[in-house]
C-alpha cells in the first residue's frame, strides 16, 4: 500500500508503498511574513469611573461662556452706545457682539439637536434590547436554539452595542465582548458571551452605583439642618443618580422615560415631605432632646435612601 504526499514535501506523508495515494491538500509557499498574533486584551481591574473625566472645555461650558460673553457684550455695547451716542459710527463693536451672540445661538442649537438625537437613539436601543431578550428566550428553548443563526445574532448584538455612548461602562464592556469573540462561536455561545461580558456586568455596576447613591442620599438627609436644604439635597442627588446610571448603561432615558422618572421624582419629594412632617411631629411629642433629633434625622436618612433606591430601580427598569 503506497501513499505519498505529492503536493507538499513538508507534510507528513505516509511512507508505505504499493498504492499511490492522491493528496487532497495542495500547498504553496507564500512570499510574505506570517502575521504576529496579538496577546488577548488584558481585563484590567475595574477602574471605570462614574464621573466623566474632563477633557478640555465642554460644549456646556462653551455655551455658558458665550452666554456670559453676550450679556457682558451687551453691557459693554450699552455702555459704548451711551458713551458714543452714535451706533452707526461704530460697526466693529456691533460686529463683535453679533459674533458672540451668533456663537451662543449656534452652540445652543447644537446642544438641542444632540439631545434630540440622543432621545431618538434611546428608543431604537430599547427595541434592540427587546430583540436581545427574544434571542435569550430562544437560546433557552432547545428547539429554537438550533435554528439561531450567527449572522442574525451578531447583527442584533452589534446594533445594540453601537448605541452605547462613548466612555460609558456599557461601551467599555461591549469593547471587551468584541475583543473576546472568536470565529468558531455558535449563535448561542455569542449570546451567552454577550450576557456574561455586557449585560450582567452592566446590571451589576448599575446596582453598585445605585447603592452608593442611595447611601449618599441618606447621608445628606441625615446631616441636612432643615427641611428646605434636605429637599434640595434630595432633588440634586436624584438628578445625579439619573445622570450616573445613564453613564453606566451608555444611554439616556428617552422623553417618555424622563417623564416617568420625573413622576417618580415628584412622588419621592412629596413622600419625603410627608415623612418630614411625621418625623417632626414624633420629635415634638418625645421632646427636643439631642437623641430625638438624632432619631428624626436617622429616620429621614433611611427614607431618603429608600426613595432614591426606588428612583434608581425605576431607572434600571427603563434602561435595562
Amino acid at each position, binding site marked *: 500500500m503506497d501513499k505519498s504526499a505529492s503536493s507538499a514535501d513538508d507534510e507528513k506523508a505516509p511512507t508505505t508503498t504499493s498504492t499511490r495515494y492522491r493528496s487532497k491538500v495542495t500547498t504553496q509557499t507564500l512570499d510574505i511574513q506570517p502575521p504576529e498574533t496579538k496577546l488577548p486584551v488584558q*481585563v484590567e481591574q475595574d477602574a471605570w469611573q462614574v464621573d466623566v473625566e474632563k477633557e478640555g472645555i465642554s460644549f456646556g461650558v462653551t455655551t455658558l461662556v458665550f452666554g456670559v460673553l453676550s450679556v457682558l457684550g451687551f453691557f459693554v455695547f450699552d455702555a459704548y452706545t451711551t458713551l458714543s451716542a452714535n451706533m452707526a459710527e461704530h460697526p466693529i463693536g456691533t460686529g463683535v457682539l453679533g459674533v458672540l451672540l451668533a456663537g451662543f445661538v449656534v452652540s445652543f442649537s447644537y446642544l438641542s439637536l444632540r439631545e434630540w438625537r440622543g432621545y431618538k437613539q434611546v428608543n431604537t436601543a430599547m427595541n434592540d434590547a427587546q430583540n436581545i431578550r427574544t434571542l435569550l428566550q430562544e437560546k433557552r428553548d432547545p428547539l429554537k436554539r438550533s435554528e439561531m443563526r450567527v449572522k442574525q445574532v451578531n447583527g442584533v448584538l452589534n446594533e445594540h452595542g453601537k448605541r452605547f455612548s462613548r466612555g460609558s461602562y456599557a461601551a467599555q464592556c461591549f469593547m471587551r465582548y468584541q475583543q473576546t469573540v472568536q470565529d468558531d462561536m455558535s449563535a448561542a455561545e455569542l449570546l*451567552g458571551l454577550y450576557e456574561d461580558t455586557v449585560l450582567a456586568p452592566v446590571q451589576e455596576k448599575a446596582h453598585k452605583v445605585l447603592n452608593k447613591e442611595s447611601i449618599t442620599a441618606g447621608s445628606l438627609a441625615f446631616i441636612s439642618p432643615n427641611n428646605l436644604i434636605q429637599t434640595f439635597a434630595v432633588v440634586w442627588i436624584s438628578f445625579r443618580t439619573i445622570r450616573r446610571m445613564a453613564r453606566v448603561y451608555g444611554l439616556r432615558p428617552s422623553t417618555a422615560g424622563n417623564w416617568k422618572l420625573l413622576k417618580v421624582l415628584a412622588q419621592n419629594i412629596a413622600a419625603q415631605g410627608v415623612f418630614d412632617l411625621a418625623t417632626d411631629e414624633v420629635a415634638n411629642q418625645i421632646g427636643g432632646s439631642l437623641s430625638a433629633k438624632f432619631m428624626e434625622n436617622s429616620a429621614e436618612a433611611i427614607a431618603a435612601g429608600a426613595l432614591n433606591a426606588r428612583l434608581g430601580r425605576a431607572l434600571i427598569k427603563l434602561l435595562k
Partner: protein
Amino acid sequence: MQKNIAALLDKTLAAASLTGDKLADVFSKETHRFTITGLSRSGKSMLFTSLITMLKSRSEEGYACLPLLRYLPPSQVLDMRVEPLDGYKAFPHQENVAALAQGQWPSATEEAYGFKLVVRLKQTATFKKHLLPHTDVVFEFIDYPGEWITDIPMLSKTYAQWSDSTWAQLSSGPQQYYAETWRQVINQFDFEQPPTAANIHALVHAYRNYLIYAKREGISLLQPGSFLLDSSDFNWQEFGFTPLPSSITSDVSHPWYQAFNKHFCAFQNNWLTPLKQSIFKETDKQIILVDLFEGLNHSRQHLYQLKETLSHLADTFVYGQSNWFSRKVLKSEQIGKVAFVATKADLIPVSQRENLLNLLHQVSEGARAKFKDKPIEFEHFLVSAMQITDEGSSAQAIRYTDSNGRYVESSFEPIPATLKDMEEGAHFPVPSAQVPNDYKARILAGKGVDRLLQFLLGKGE
C-alpha cells in the same frame, strides 16, 4: 454492602479526626478529577501545557482568554496555583514552555505525570462568604503514555483470547499491510524448539519491530503498547510474549503456549492491574482525545480502526453518575460526563470543521454505545490547544509556517463528513507546522478549551 458500611465507618472516623482547617476543606473545596484518555500522539501533553498556561494567564495576568468558561468567572478568581499530585511525578509544564520558546514541541509522554490545579474563588453566597471567604476548585489531571491505555482491555482476556483476537486484527484492516514481515517470521519459525530465553527474545523482538512500524504508520490499536516504551516498569525483554498461531494456542500443553501464558499472566498481574488501579481509578469526568488527522493522513481503514480502538477503550472505565453521598462520603466516583475531543482542529480551515465534527461523531459511535443506557452526559468538541494556523486566501485554505520555516498556504478539498465518504486512494496529509515565535499569544488564542471545560464543570446549561 458490608464493604460500603466499612467505607462509611472509615470516613466517619477520618472526619472525626479532622482538624478545623481540614473540616473547612470539606465544605470549601470542590475537587474534579479528570481522566484524559488519549492515544499516543493525540496531543495530551500540549493540551495540558496550554490549559495551565491559559488558566494562569487568565487569573494572574488578566488576559481575556477562555471567554466561554463561565464556571470560573475571572472577577471571582483570587489566585491559581499548580501543585503536585501525590504519587505522581510533577508535570513538566515549565520545561514544555521552555521547549516551545526554543521552537520545539513538548516531547511525547513516556511516563505518568500528575498535577493539581487549585483555583481559589471568592465566595459570593451572602451568608457563606462570612464563614468561608473562598472556595478552592481543585482539578486533578493525570498525563500518561497513550501506549499504556491500549493495553488495559487485555486485563479481561486470557492469553489465548488475546492471541486469537490479535491475529484477527493482523489479518484485516490496515494492519494487514504492515504485518507481512511478522507473519513471515511466524511462518518460518520452528515451534518445535524449546521456548528458551533466546528463542523467546527473538520472537518478541520481531513482534516489537512490527509494533514500531505499525505505530509509525498511524495504527492506534497496538497491543501490548507498553512494549514500545522503555519507561514502562514491565520487563518485556524477560517476560515478553507475542500472539501465537491458533494451532498452538488451542493446545494448552504446548510449551510455547505455557511459556507465553505465564508471561501474559505476569503482565496482567504485575503491570496492568496496578496500572489500572493507580491511574484509571475513581474519576467523574473523562476526556477522550482523538487525533482524526492520523486517520485522514492515511486512509479510510485507519479511521475505522481508530473507531474500533475507541470502542475497546470505553470498556476500561466505570460509567455511571455519582451522587453527593458517594462522592463526598464514600469517595467513590463514576464517570458522569464524557467529552469526545478532536484535537489539532486548527489544522483544517474553519469551513471544514463541521465535517470534522461529524467524523468525530461517527468515530465515537462504538464507544458511546457502551454507555447508552446509563445516565451519562456526553458531548463532542473540536479543540486547538494552540492556534498555529492563520486564515488562508479562501475559505478552504489555511496558512502556517512549515517545519522548514517557510510560510505556506494549504488548500483543502472538502473533508468527508462520514467515514464512507472518505475516498479510497486519497488522503489529507497533515500540515507539519513549526512552533510559532508568538507561541504564547497563539496558546491564548487556542479554541474550544473553554467550551470543553464549561461542559465538564457546568451543571448542564
